[in-house]
């Protein structure tokens, strides 16, 4: 039923769990007022980021969104540095310059979270174009939400990718909302995956609460693009567990929406059920992973709290390479 090795399964679970705990902990820490800025939590949608990124190596690239923690962790970003970045330390991923919305590890193929909705897809086309020109068999992905599918830049990127026939995968994450507005309203009730299809790209749909569903869809899309057939699309649906950003009162959501999601559509639960039903893994292995992840997150927060902060001299550093 699945051709994933045990090691791969454990890694997938570990990454989903790491994202989950990273976000759950941030939710708590942010409430204490220690973390500045806008933080958009990904919890709930972990299966999408991980289901997609498990197909990638460091040589492949992703471009993420404002809701980027999940994508970055799934692509292998350094969690300790990420936490420090979010706390604003000079030891963070971006030396405290970027924060939650701009986590990037370019040498690991993470071309940045992105605070501009629709900012990422054109950049992903460029990374894919580099793959094509270098003929190095890599692919590039960009993530985007239902909301971002209304931004003109997303369409331009899709058409450009088709025109230039680059190995680009558009991951469309429909989580039902763009900020406080329902996805169905924003698109006049019309299926947003159809937009991608209208450019002639194959669209592979997945249940975003099910790692295996996403993994399979992503496999097809990435294989299609990697073998040189041009861009493709992964379309996955799953709602977020938290507000649009931390501080969002979520009055646009029905009272029990998240409670129900957590009970019936949790990707970690689904994963555990599946691997146990299909006897793919011993659940005790995953319990051990849970402990390790919790310890890692605890450490990351302890480290971040005491990590050094920048000073005036740092402000004007790294605007240019030379000037």
């Amino acid at each position, binding site marked *: 039923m699945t051709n994933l090795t045990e090691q791969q399964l454990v890694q997938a679970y570990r990454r989903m769990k790491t994202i989950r705990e990273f976000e759950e902990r941030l939710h708590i820490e942010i409430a204490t007022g220690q973390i*500045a*800025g*806008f933080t958009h939590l990904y919890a709930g949608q972990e299966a999408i980021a991980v289901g997609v990124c498990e197909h990638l190596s460091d040589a492949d690239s992703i471009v993420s969104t404002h809701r980027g923690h999940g994508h970055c962790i799934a692509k292998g970003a350094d969690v300790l540095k990420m936490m420090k*970045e979010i706390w*604003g*330390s*000079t030891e963070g991923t*971006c030396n*405290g*310059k*970027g*924060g939650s*919305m*701009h986590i990037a590890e370019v040498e690991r193929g993470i071309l940045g979270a*992105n*605070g*501009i*909705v*629709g*900012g990422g897809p054109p950049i992903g086309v460029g990374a894919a174009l580099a793959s094509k020109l270098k003929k190095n068999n890599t692919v590039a992905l960009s993530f985007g939400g239902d*909301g*971002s599918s*209304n*931004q*003109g*830049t997303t369409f331009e990127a899709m058409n450009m990718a088709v025109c230039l026939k680059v190995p680009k995968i558009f991951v469309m994450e429909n989580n039902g*909302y*763009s*900020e*406080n*507005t*329902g*996805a*169905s*309203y*924003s*698109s006049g009730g019309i299926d947003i995956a159809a937009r991608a299809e209208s450019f002639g790209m194959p669209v592979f749909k997945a249940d975003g609460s099910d790692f295996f569903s996403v993994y399979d869809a992503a496999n097809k899309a990435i294989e299609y693009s990697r073998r040189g057939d041009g861009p493709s699309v992964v379309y996955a649906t799953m709602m977020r567990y938290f507000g649009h950003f931390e501080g969002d*009162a979520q*009055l*646009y*959501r*029905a*009272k029990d*929406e998240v409670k129900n999601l957590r009970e019936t559509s949790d990707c970690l639960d689904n994963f555990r059920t599946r691997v146990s039903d299909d006897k793919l893994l011993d659940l005790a292995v995953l319990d051990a992973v849970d402990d390790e992840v919790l310890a890692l997150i605890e450490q990351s927060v302890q480290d971040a709290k005491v990590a050094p*902060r*920048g*000073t*005036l001299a*740092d*402000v*004007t550093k790294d*605007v240019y390479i030379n000037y």
Partner: protein
Amino acid sequence: MPIKTARDALNEAMFHEFARDPNVFAIGEDIAGGRGGSSGDIGCVGGIFGVTKGLVAEFGEERVIDTPISESAIVGAAAGAALSGMRPVAEIMFADFFGVCLDQVMNQVAKFRYMFGGKTKCPLVIRCNTGAGYSAAAQHSQTMYQMMTAIPGLKVVVPSNAYDAKGLLISAIQDDDPVLFFEHKLLYQSECEVPDEAYAIPFGEAAMPREGEHCTVVAFGQMVNVAAQAIDSLAAEGITCDLIDPRTTSPLDEETILESVEATGRLVVVDESPPRCGLTADIAGMVADKGFSSLRAPIKQVTAPHSPVPFAAELEAAYLPKAQDVAAAIRETLK
């Protein structure tokens, strides 16, 4: 007079103008909020800083229009409606997002009247939040109003307090030219006395929140408050200053600035934008021509550095001009 936050003052201005003129409507992302949501609570947001709160309940869904994330289409929709006799008030959530809709602002809205030989008008307002101070990082903290001031055909408003915010927004909505209205993130919570009734503050007339004799300080938006703090701190040293808040950067009240410099002979210009091709240079350059004979000292500009806005709170604080920077610049001119 009642004390109100600028958020409430702006909200009142919207209510006044919606009630006065049925052609006024609002359009933007989440300016009502909740459409298509599972709770059905439409109007639950009122814009991310609450400026349009309550409008949809009072004036109905047709006049408070939530949109997809499509800034070019938002401005375009406002533009086309304005050409067709309406008076739209569009909201672009963050000033930085002029990046995705500059064409509509610069090449369309700003130029219609001119390109069409003066035979039409495009009375719209585009509101947005501006500036740093929220650790919102490089893509959500820019000022942008200096770049917009460079564009002929636009009027540009940068209020520094709740009272002005209300009166200037009312003027903006009543104005027959396109107006960009920049609300600083730190402005929303700032409070002062604000009348309940409607009043209009004319464009191109500076305010002078401090008067003094040693130096003229011109500051924009949130920096007016920083400069005021600096000036107040210098009283102990026997230094007093004129503080000029232009309120609108386009049109600009050159006269008030020049008159003040004529009296003080000294000028410090303060803005939180980076230094290049900004408003501080704009004012300095203007005075270095028209007010040259009055000048008794170098004109000092206090700005952010030539760098994007950093995320970390400590770095952002270091990035922003502070009262002590302004005080130091004033002292410099008196050396």
